[in-house]
């Protein structure tokens, strides 16, 4: 591992990669600061641009966007009470009351430092936990890989949606999209309808861009969210002085929660932030301060949602199972650059892989510098007119997708996926299971076929190893636990923290003090 890290360092600190990381972090904060846009969308739009870049330049930029956007979401959450990204929901609880008291800049400073701390700890977790997990994954045969893919799909489909049935529908749609093209095992066409352009299958980038970049643009134009400069809290500034040392225990707790939540597929920064905020309030001596502008509340939420970032890449890089939509998009970015997720990343592509992991660490530190220097710019970006921004996003995605294969068909397909994604969001069908199914479906199918061949078509062979039985148990638990939780919530009449993380309005109703 250390040899690979040493080999990665000269690549990482080359001028092009440093510039890409700084540019990515800045773009990430700008995207996060714009309500309605997310890290997933930012990376999806920019992947086609990185097509001709060196892999580490492209991955460094993606790492910067990811870390930057998570912090960027805190800016409108604190100043306008509008979370810029879903992970910024918990930041609203204490961040906005601080802004109302005239402590908006202090809240932003706390959010920035907490984000940098959380992001750095998460990157270290990725650096030290990934190699052993990847080594373990080397022991996986087709049976284990099949169950692992099914586990990833079940976890995302069931946990990401309020209604598991909608998550499963999304996963099935993704599986169908993943099957389009020529079957690599038999050479038969599936769902191509004699369309020449569909023979090679649907490019994952076309799907990612369509599902994650077009719907936010359509929503921006539709809702035309105009932010007034007078809505940024109290104009009167007060300085309370930040007790950084007092925040240390909060950072330790929040980072731990963020890393653990990040590793679990189907969760995300919003859940990490919510759990962390709740836990910090629970252990506090004076609980009544929370929701009224407690600095620890901002630190807990921001540190946890950034600690989730790199950790969520652990299952994606080592096992090829993306645990969230943003890690699925990054996985797409790796595939574009010919890097196959899984144990091979840590052997064949080790310098680039370790370079990427270190880029997550470096961009977390860069975030602190860029956040301090560009604070005024980032605040002004929130007020960019959405009616002008929406056509720009559409234009950027159009040329980006066209440039991949010089295919206009891909652009039309992207637009069709975009409209489909917008419709799915309106109907409460999560997008992430569909994307994950496109990636995991072919993995599951080819592993199942190989397993059946090895096992002489005996179904019992699929349950022949301990790992397989553990996986099957996990799948059953993943599907049953939300049902049990739902029943408990029904009887108790009080939503769980996870349920509240999935529903921001519900969260606000239950956790914010009455104005």
């Amino acid at each position, binding site marked *: 591992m250390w040899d690979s890290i040493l080999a990665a360092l000269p690549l990482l600190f080359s001028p092009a990669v440093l510039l890409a990381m700084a540019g990515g972090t800045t773009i990430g904060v700008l995207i996060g600061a714009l309500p309605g846009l997310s890290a997933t969308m930012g990376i999806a739009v920019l992947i086609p*641009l990185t*097509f*001709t870049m060196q892999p580490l330049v492209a991955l460094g930029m993606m790492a910067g966007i990811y870390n930057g956007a998570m912090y960027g979401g805190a800016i409108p959450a604190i100043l306008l009470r509008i979370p810029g990204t879903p992970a910024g929901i918990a930041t609203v609880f204490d961040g906005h009351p601080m802004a109302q008291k005239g402590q908006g800049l202090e809240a932003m400073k706390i959010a920035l430092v907490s984000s940098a701390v959380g992001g750095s700890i998460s990157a270290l977790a990725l650096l030290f936990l990934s190699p052993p997990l990847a080594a373990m994954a080397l022991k996986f045969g087709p049976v284990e890989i099949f169950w692992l893919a099914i586990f990833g799909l079940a976890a995302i489909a069931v946990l990401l949606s309020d209604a598991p*049935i*909608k998550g*499963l*529908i999304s996963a*099935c*749609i993704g*599986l*169908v999209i993943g*099957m389009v093209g020529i*079957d690599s*095992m*038999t050479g*038969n066409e*599936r*769902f191509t309808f004699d369309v020449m352009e569909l023979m090679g299958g649907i490019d994952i980038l076309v799907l990612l861009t369509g599902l994650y970049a077009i719907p936010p*643009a*359509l929503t921006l*134009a*539709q*809702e*035309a969210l105009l932010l007034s400069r007078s809505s940024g809290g109290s104009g009167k500034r007060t300085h309370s002085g930040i007790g950084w040392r007092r925040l240390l225990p909060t950072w330790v707790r929040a980072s731990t929660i963020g890393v653990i939540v990040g590793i679990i597929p189907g969760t995300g920064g919003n859940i990490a932030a919510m759990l962390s905020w709740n836990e910090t309030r629970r252990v506090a001596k004076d609980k009544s301060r929370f929701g009224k502008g407690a600095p620890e509340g901002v630190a807990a939420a921001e540190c946890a949602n950034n600690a989730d970032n790199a950790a969520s890449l652990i299952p994606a890089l080592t096992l090829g199972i993306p645990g969230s939509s943003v890690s699925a998009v990054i996985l797409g970015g790796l595939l574009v650059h010919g890097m196959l997720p899984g144990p091979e990343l840590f052997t064949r592509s080790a310098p680039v892989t370790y370079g990427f992991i270190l880029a997550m660490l470096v961009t977390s530190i860069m975030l602190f510098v860029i956040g301090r220097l560009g604070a005024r710019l980032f605040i002004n970006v929130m007020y960019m*007119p959405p*009616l*002008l921004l*929406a*056509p*720009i996003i*559409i*234009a*950027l995605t*159009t*040329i980006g997708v*066209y*440039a991949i294969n*010089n295919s*206009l068909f891909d*652009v*039309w397909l992207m*637009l069709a996926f975009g*409209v489909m994604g917008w*419709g799915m969001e309106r*109907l409460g069908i999560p997008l992430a299971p569909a994307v994950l199914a496109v990636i995991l*479906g072919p993995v599951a*199918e080819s592993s*199942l*076929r190989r397993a059946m061949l090895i096992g002489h078509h005996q179904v019992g062979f699929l349950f022949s190893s301990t790992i397989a039985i553990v996986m099957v148990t996990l799948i059953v638990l993943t599907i049953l636990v939300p049902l049990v939780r739902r029943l408990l919530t029904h009887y108790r009449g009080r939503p769980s923290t996870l349920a509240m993380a999935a529903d921001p309005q519900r969260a606000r109703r239950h956790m914010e003090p009455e104005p």
Partner: protein
Amino acid sequence: MRQATLETSVALAAAVLSGCGLWHALSFTRDSAYLPTAVMSLLTLLLLVWGIRSAWSLRQAGSDTLRFAPGHARRFLTLLATSVAMIAIAPRLGFATTFLLFVPVSGWLLGYRQGKWLVTTAILFSLLIYLIFQIVLDRPLPPELALRLVTGS
């Protein structure tokens, strides 16, 4: 219209489509048909369950009425229509030239009225796109009409 009505309609229409997909998947050769048949069957079943559940919730008096703010549908359709037009003409005019028209026209039609910003943004954005894709990334894109008009070539 209520959300449940919309969900019932979408679920049932999608179930019909999925049923057609299942029928199509059954025509694949044996080894290629296992997964498509299983997935399409599951999808059809899930869509039917969703449709029935939504239809059932219609029986209860609910507050899930869909409310469209004025201008929402108009702006959505405007951006969609201008995007379709942009994709159709971009290969003929060149991408940067098309964006020179698309960004201000879409912005104006969507309701943005700061003419100076519309024009400045469109020029800067098109220039940036040309620089990134033609000069830096050197992608083989359709020739730019604006460039031909300016250079006279």
